[in-house]
């Protein structure tokens, strides 16, 4: 009951955030520019084009009405047309967003899978060599420039060992030789829908290196946060009590201390996810990954405002939904969260 009310409260709050960001995007796209219609109409527009844009944008209406029009369009997935490519932005997003989400989810999962157990280990062996090695590793993981790590991984796993593909989402034999029917544009999902295990495995191998590259930073952060939370919790009296009850050390670490230490580690998911959504331009370029980062960076260079606005909206919504899920996960792990 408390949990349901908590989820409801969080959802309402998230909705407010989305509305707020919509408003900001609206301001930036349509109010700040001196002549948004000219921007909207594209480079070197004719007078008719500008007039048409004025009407489409509803520019002569009062501000609240214009915002309503804008918000309604965003809500219905009508992001307009890229003025550079003249393509429907919604169509572009259908291709780029799944590629990015796939990478973001995979790399976030990887970051947690690597960072949390290492943080637990470092805390359990505080001050001894696993801890020192882990601390060094986490600093290196956080400090290493992404492009550099990407190139090293490519060099080692693709060039020298030849066990993982260099770049792309699928091998040429599959992408061209036996293409997957495109349903969702999530390669993994499409492969499963088509019952193509070969393509699924192939897609996973393509995900590993870019996901590992992206996971490095959040894994390092997750490791540090888990370590310090664990060290604090291992001192608590309920852990001492668990020791007097004859529980095994792994059981104490993972069953009785880690759940209490999960809070900070879970917040890393948000960080990692946001970073993977648009911050991964270099990674997407190096691994020839057709993602949002590249899409929006090109749009920024071209001052392609409708695209920038659309990507901002989509990324915000993804991020807000992710944070909502994290909040719910926190409340499930720690029932007291829902009470506060």
């Amino acid at each position, binding site marked *: 009951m408390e949990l349901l009310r908590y989820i409801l409260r969080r959802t309402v709050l998230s909705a407010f955030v989305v509305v707020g960001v919509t408003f900001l995007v609206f301001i930036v796209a349509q109010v700040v520019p001196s002549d948004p219609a000219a921007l909207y109409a594209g480079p070197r527009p004719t007078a008719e084009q500008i007039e048409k844009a004025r009407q489409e944008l509803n520019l002569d209406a009062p501000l609240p009405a214009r915002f309503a029009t804008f918000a309604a369009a965003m809500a219905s997935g009508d992001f307009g047309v890229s003025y550079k490519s003249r393509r429907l932005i919604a169509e572009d997003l259908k291709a780029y967003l799944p590629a990015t989400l796939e990478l973001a989810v995979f790399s976030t999962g990887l970051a947690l899978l690597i960072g949390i157990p290492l943080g637990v280990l470092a805390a359990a062996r505080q001050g001894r060599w696993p801890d020192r090695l882990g601390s060094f590793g986490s600093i290196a993981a956080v400090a290493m420039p992404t492009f550099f790590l990407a190139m090293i991984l490519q060099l080692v796993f693709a060039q020298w060992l030849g066990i993982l593909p260099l770049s792309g989402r699928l091998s040429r034999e599959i992408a061209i030789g036996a293409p997957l029917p495109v349903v969702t544009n999530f390669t993994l999902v499409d492969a499963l829908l088509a019952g193509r295990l070969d393509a699924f495995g192939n897609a996973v191998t393509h995900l590993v290196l870019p996901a590992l590259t992206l996971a490095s930073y959040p894994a390092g952060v997750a490791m540090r946060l888990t370590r310090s939370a664990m060290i604090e919790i291992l001192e608590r*009296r*309920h852990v001492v009590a668990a020791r*007097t009850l004859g529980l095994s050390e792994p059981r104490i670490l993972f069953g009785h201390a880690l759940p209490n230490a999960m809070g900070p580690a879970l917040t890393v998911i948000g960080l990692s996810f946001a970073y993977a959504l648009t911050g991964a331009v270099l990674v997407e370029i190096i691994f020839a990954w057709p993602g949002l980062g590249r899409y929006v960076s090109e749009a920024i260079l071209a001052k392609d405002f409708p695209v920038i606005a659309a990507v901002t909206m989509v990324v915000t919504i993804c991020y807000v939904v992710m944070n909502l899920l994290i909040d719910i996960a926190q409340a499930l792990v720690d029932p007291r969260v829902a009470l506060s």
Partner: protein
Amino acid sequence: MPLLDISDLCVRIPTPEGEVHAVRAVSLRIERGEIHGVIGESGCGKTMTGMATLGLAPKGARIEAARFHFDGADLREQAKALRGKRIGMIAQDPAAALNPVLSIARQMDDVIRAHRTLPREARRREAADLLAATGLPDPGRVLKSYPHQLSGGMQQRVVIAQALATGADFLIADEPTTALDVSVGAQVLALLRKLVAERGLTVLMITHDMDVIAEACDRATVLYAGRSVETGPVEAVLQKPGHPYTRALLAALPDAAPHGARLAAIEGSIPPPRTRIAGCAFAPRCPKAMPVCAAEPPPERARDRHTWLCHLPEDAA
């Protein structure tokens, strides 16, 4: 042979400011089936004595003793192996002793699983039975709860049920009623007495409250500044105390006063744990102190099975 046999236990803890002499010379002989009270002001080494017995002294602590045995096994080597199997603990603050993010069912189940291989359903029944044995009226509902949903008295019963689940026959209860209301505390003491009688348990009851000694214990040992200064059957210690410190403790007990904070009524305070003490540690506060007291360790005095350490001759006590 006593179940717990400690003679001249000494625990030194290294700290950045130098070594802390948390326990200086504690002797405890606890017989099977008794509730043995250990009483003394805060800081006199009660908890550390219990923690050393559990093998949970702080890292780097130096433990020395003439004898430090549990049922014939040397605790210096075996404490970790005995902990959670034969020796259990009931902590002062049950709210802190239970994991706030795990359900009672999970926390009971983890203990049962650590000690026996049983199918899930049998473990669940066992957990409910143990909770019922501690007098919890609705075990099914308690199992579904989280610690913050239970009252302090219920939490302490869960902690006791967990200790029972280990199968331990010796429990160290460190101020098990201090965090509870007086009436709830009395119920918990009654429960411990009942469990001792029914299950043949032995309990080391740490307290700073003479009432707890009077209500629940068979024998008692008085600690002062890290030393055991008097030990004997509860009636003897309460009615004919030998050591001036014990007498001061009892004198500071106005019958009508509310519970708690009574020991503070003795003038002065215990010596800090870093000082060296040559003679009797109580000398600076003792109304009967003589010149010899501060200079030489006091000899043992005895009356029946009741002993204490003091320079005063036995008949003057």
